[in-house]
């Protein structure tokens, strides 16, 4: 563990009780002027931007990292309450459409320092080696310009920094985790029991909650509100895993600042800095390098809105690649009813998962696969589940009163990247006059087949565990893609090192660069991609 502290001291920069950053770290943070030409501005302080901030600050770069939302103080700002956690989500106006519109907000979009990892469940699986070559192996999706071995060392580093707990992981590239698995609650217990009875392999983990203290971060208290922001500071997010160390190395975090456009020098074609709005005023921060990490909706929106004579269709969009190949995972949820009381709200929702069905099965009509995990919705999310079944009125209320008897599993199905699943700018404007994002999504046949297959397996597990009834709703989870990495500029926006093809000093280091998504929750991979991009700046500096 001491080697973690040597390269990322964040967990030791909290107060001894782990409740907040040490005195002075935030208050005395270095602050730059708009007229200072900093080494880099980073837009977005989530999984990709937070990691990048810490890595570049350690390299001695002068960094300003913007976030549209607040710089959270968990003890004061977050609550142990579902409806009261609404401010963790990106709730600015956005439009959704297409054949299978994908709800945003609480489902997949964060706002504030820490990004969506503030309210993600905490699952941090690696991608499998096959994920990087799906076109070659399976004739679907895309091949990445990097391969699994390029990311493996960064997976190992980040797993140490979060840190991740779990059993030995037998799937993909088999590996171990730095911390032993967490104890499980009723939902995890039933998943393990059902999987065993159905002949399906399942394991506890991988979850970014250390089993025990980590630095000054306390032990998990199993209160079940992981998706509402971890007040305990037991669950990892960049707010506590990377930002403290970045501050200690001289980075500035500039919260409540919405970046609206990236500046371009029309003569050189280089990025010059960012236009942003703070306290109602438009400002411009100069920078030698601009690094975008706004995630799959806001990153394309920002690029598309950054028009100039050189880039009339949006920055780095010469080949109409920006906003395209955006993916969500199909995430059907199947619940099972048990005579016993499951009380799935006790213990973290992320407990147990199976990747047995992750890879292409040559005996099936579809390509690629899915993973299965415990999900444990709290009452409001559960009510949406029951209402999505068409229940309302007295019947709905009767179902709800039965809440403690239900266990709930969720699948992540690898939906395939398609060019028309994309972000564009709508005619509608936000309060700053910036066009809002329109996100269009339509599933393909393979996507639908995966959802049915995953549902069938989840029903099998729950029935094998003793459920007398099951019910399933179809939903989506996560976002990746929208500004993908590729071998050349006709197939993507950035290269293998996250540098844009079109602008030499413009990088993108967030989930939008992922060309495929596997059946894995994306946070760990986004951080690993960012950590690698930062390292590549040492070997291959920007000219």
């Amino acid at each position, binding site marked *: 563990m001491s080697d973690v502290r040597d390269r990322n001291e964040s967990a030791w920069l909290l107060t001894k009780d782990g409740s907040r950053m040490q005195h002075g770290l935030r208050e005395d943070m270095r602050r730059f002027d708009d007229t200072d030409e900093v080494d880099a501005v980073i837009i977005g302080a989530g999984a990709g931007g937070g990691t990048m901030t810490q890595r570049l600050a350690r390299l001695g770069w002068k960094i300003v990292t913007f976030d549209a939302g607040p710089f959270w103080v968990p003890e004061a700002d977050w609550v142990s309450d579902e409806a009261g956690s609404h401010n963790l989500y990106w709730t600015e106006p956005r439009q959704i459409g297409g054949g299978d519109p994908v709800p945003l907000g609480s489902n997949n979009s964060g706002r504030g320092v820490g990004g969506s990892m503030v309210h993600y469940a905490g699952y941090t699986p690696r991608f499998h080696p096959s994920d990087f070559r799906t076109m070659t192996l399976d004739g679907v999706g895309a091949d990445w310009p990097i391969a699994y071995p390029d990311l493996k060392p960064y997976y190992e580093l980040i797993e140490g920094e979060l840190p991740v707990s779990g059993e030995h992981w037998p799937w993909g590239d088999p590996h171990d985790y730095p911390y032993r698995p967490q104890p499980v609650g009723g939902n995890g217990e039933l998943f393990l029991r059902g999987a065993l009875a159905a002949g399906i392999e399942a394991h506890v983990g991988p979850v970014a909650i250390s089993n025990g203290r980590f630095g000054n971060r306390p032990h998990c208290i199993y209160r079940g509100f992981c998706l509402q922001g971890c007040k305990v500071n037991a669950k990892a997010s960049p707010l506590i895993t990377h930002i403290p160390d970045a501050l200690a190395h001289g980075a500035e975090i500039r919260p409540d600042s919405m970046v609206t456009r990236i500046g371009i020098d029309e003569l050189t074609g280089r990025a010059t800095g960012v236009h942003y709005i703070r306290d109602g005023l438009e400002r411009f921060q100069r920078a030698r390098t601009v690094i975008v990490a706004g995630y799959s909706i806001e990153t394309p929106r920002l690029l598309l809105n950054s028009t100039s004579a050189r880039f009339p269709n949006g920055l780095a969009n010469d080949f109409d690649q920006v906003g395209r190949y955006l993916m969500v995972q199909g995430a059907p949820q199947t619940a099972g009813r048990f005579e016993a009381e499951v009380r799935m709200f006790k213990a973290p929702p992320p407990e147990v998962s199976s990747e047995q069905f992750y890879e292409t099965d040559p005996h099936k009509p579809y390509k690629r696969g899915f993973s299965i995990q415990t999900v444990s919705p*709290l009452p409001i999310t559960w009510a949406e589940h029951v209402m999505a079944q068409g229940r309302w009125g007295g019947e709905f209320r009767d*179902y709800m009163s039965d809440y403690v*008897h239900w266990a709930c599993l969720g699948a992540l199905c690898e939906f395939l990247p398609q060019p028309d699943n994309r972000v564009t700018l709508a005619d509608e404007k936000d309060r700053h006059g910036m066009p809002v994002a329109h996100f269009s999504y339509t599933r393909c046949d393979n996507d639908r087949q995966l959802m049915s297959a995953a549902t069938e397996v989840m029903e099998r597990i729950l029935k094998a565990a003793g459920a007398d009834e099951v019910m399933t709703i179809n939903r989506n989870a996560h976002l990746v893609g929208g500004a993908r990495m590729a071998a050349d500029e006709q197939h993507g926006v950035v290269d293998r090192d996250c540098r844009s093809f079109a602008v030499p000093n413009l990088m993108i280091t967030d989930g939008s660069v992922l060309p495929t998504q596997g059946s894995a929750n994306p946070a760990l991979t986004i951080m690993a991609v960012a950590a690698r991009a930062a390292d590549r700046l040492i070997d291959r500096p920007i000219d």
Partner: protein
Amino acid sequence: MTRAVRFPGFNVRSQSDHWDDATRAVIVGRVNALPAVRFFTPAEEAAAKCLLDQLVDQRTEPGSPRVDLVRMVDARLAEKQTDGWRYDTMPPDGAAWQQTLAALDEDSQRDHGVGFARCTWEEQHAMLEAFRDADDPNWHGLPRSQVWNLWTRYAATAFYSHPELWNEIGFSGPAYPRGYKNLGIDRLESYEVHDAEPGDDPMAGGTE
């Protein structure tokens, strides 16, 4: 119809001394300090109240919990606290609520000669049942399923944010900083209460 009490004596709020300050403030505010209606017109307020109560089967009976759903939804719309998305085939949430409540009143005038709020509970229920069962994918120029999604999403979020309803479903509410000590099947904390009607499976109960 009176609903059986499944968790007799269970009272989430009796544990509020164990909640953190920020959480307690949010929940107390939700229960005791809702702002007055300011977004809806009186006519919209009347229709919205009846619609929301119907969706979650909230009747005015002595002793049963009363959640002021219309003020909770009104506050969200006044503050533009959306879910962070809307269908491109629907107006923004505030306008969508106004438009659909007017349409509901229009249907009610046509069928019963009075606004939705003036109908009996049974008439309101039948109108919503008919709304659900209709084959026409459009309703007053809007996609029927998306209208239903809007109504139920706001209703469910408001209703199950209220501690009275946590008592009804056996949910233990805020759990910070104390956390849980007894994880696992059929295991309770000292203040939790077992379901008195564990065989009351709604699917087996013939409510279909």
